[in-house]
């Protein structure tokens, strides 16, 4: 009897045997990772998405899994993710990326599947899909970008908006009595059996960019080792909706945001 899903495999077997990536660098001037398409991002100046895209692409390149990886884009500022990665990509409905990724991974169990989601997408409308994909122990990787607002729709209060933070729908700051409290996704996901690697990192300075890349790599490795779901919550600047300059936005992460969203590895089954 066939093992569930095993039969639906193309000719090649798995990421660690036959398939080998050509690792050559494509552009000597930009050192662009192979897994990124050679077009410029549409993001605002100082936005964190571009950095995080690049980190994900570099990790995919270094793991040699570009041809085996399927990405799932979500809804929000990062909706164009599907154009930027030079990978097979699917566009999910708002919040549904973990369910879409589940469908892909279940029929292509040896491919590498990741979602790229913002905090409005994952933390609000898609929190159910996120928790249940974790609880099922789906072997997928979730890149979760937390910038404490809804970016694309105009800086409204998000599930991650800090207490006291002014947004377009909390002009006098988020009040717990009226607006409730921010949701700490990384902590919650780490508490669910089925998650294998969970970390919160930031991209506000070079040290933390390097740590973010390391965490993304570990989350992908948790998938490749079939340990369970890996999630990296990345604190990311949104200068436009924070009404700060790019450098002020970086400082705000360091001085304010990290206090509400402490950095670190919450769970690592390999540790």
């Amino acid at each position, binding site marked *: 009897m066939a093992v569930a899903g095993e039969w639906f495999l193309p000719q090649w077997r798995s990421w660690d045997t036959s398939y080998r990536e050509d690792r050559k660098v494509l552009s000597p001037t930009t050192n662009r990772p192979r897994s990124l398409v050679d077009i410029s991002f549409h993001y605002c100046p100082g936005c964190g998405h571009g950095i995080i895209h690049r980190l994900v692409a570099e990790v995919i390149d270094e793991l040699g899994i570009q041809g085996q990886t399927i990405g799932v884009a979500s809804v929000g500022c990062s909706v164009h993710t599907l154009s930027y990665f030079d990978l097979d990509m699917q566009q999910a409905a708002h919040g549904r990326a973990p369910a879409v990724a589940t469908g892909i991974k279940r029929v292509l169990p040896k491919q590498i599947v990741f979602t790229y989601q913002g905090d409005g997408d994952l933390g609000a409308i898609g929190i159910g899909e996120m928790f*249940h994909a974790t609880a099922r122990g789906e072997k997928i990787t979730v890149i979760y970008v937390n910038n404490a607002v809804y970016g694309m729709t105009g800086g409204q209060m998000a599930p991650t908006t800090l207490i006291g933070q002014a947004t377009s729908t909390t002009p006098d700051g988020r009040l717990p009595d009226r607006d409730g409290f921010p949701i700490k996704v990384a902590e919650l996901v780490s508490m669910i059996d089925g998650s294998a690697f969970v970390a919160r990192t930031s991209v506000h300075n070079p040290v933390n960019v390097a740590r973010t890349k390391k965490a993304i790599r570990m989350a992908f490795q948790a998938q490749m080792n079939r340990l369970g779901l890996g999630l990296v919550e990345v604190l990311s600047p949104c200068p436009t909706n924070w009404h700060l300059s790019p450098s002020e936005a970086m400082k705000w992460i360091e001085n304010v945001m990290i206090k509400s969203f402490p950095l670190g590895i919450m769970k690592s089954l390999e540790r």
Partner: protein
Amino acid sequence: MTAKRRLLKGTDAFGEGAVTAGCQLFCGYPITPQSELTHYLATRLPQVGGIYLQSESETAAINMVYGAAGAGARVLTASSGPGISLMSEGLSYLAGAELPAVIINIMRGGPGLGNTRPSQSDYWQATKGGGHGDYRLITLAPWSVQENFDFTILAFELADKYRNPVMILADGILAQMMETVEVLEISRLNQTPFDKPWATTGTMGRRPKNIISSLHLPPEELEAHNQKLLNKYLAIEDCEARAECYGISEAEIVVVAFGIAARIATAAIALGSERGLKIGLFRPQTLWPFPARQLQEAVKHAKRILVLELNTGQMVYDVRYALGSSKAVDFYGRCGGMVFTPMEILGYILSGGSQGAVAYN
């Protein structure tokens, strides 16, 4: 390919049809009266190398379908009205991204929680959208356990052929009743995957990347995409409208009904024929595309047309649209889980009907 006769329950016939068609993944959420189908597939699919996956909601189920269909798999989900409402978002995305998938709706009475009794009140939801945007859902309406089996296979074929979601619209009676079924002994499960060069399976360094998406931000691009979809829908209307006629050539009265209502109508027609009435039945097997041309042909010589539905009058609008003002179209329906009896239908016919008005009970 060999055929075998088996006594099957309606839900199991859907499941066996899916297995025969090479369905690789079922994802769904329990709801009465669909639940027995999940029981069957949870046992049966793993036996043939497929996957049964229980989702946390219908919303998640249809999005799992989206992911797996986009990855090139044959994939099925099933629910009942309230669950289909939750799936409507995903149906729109499937249609927009042109992904093949099969959705079985074992209808119950509505609106809201309604009840779990037989009903045909989701006709509009299936054929007139449900989800947002300009799209069409191929909708098949079986009337027997045999057709549950056959139409499930047909649904997978049509879905792949047109890269479009296909819905099978049944009801609690069709799900629960048992009949002998001629079952084909084929399964494509262990054969080569279906050729879907557009699927996101990983480029393996051999081809440019594939994108599964319904996002078209430039208006010109979205209009062109909608036009492309429309051309596909017109081709489906041309080629795939299906219907069956019974005793039409002599008929003065033509009953139009689908699914279990048509099944009940045949008993009423038999009773009427015994009393010398010339009654025929026109039964749409596809609800979208609606078999308008076949209907126009079938009612050419009819004096009276009676639409029978287990709702307050939904398909009757398509019948009237197909026939224009050429014929008066009468309607008789029961709803809320109430089912008309053959004698009740005959009584209505003999009473002269409502002369073209939408009459309800």
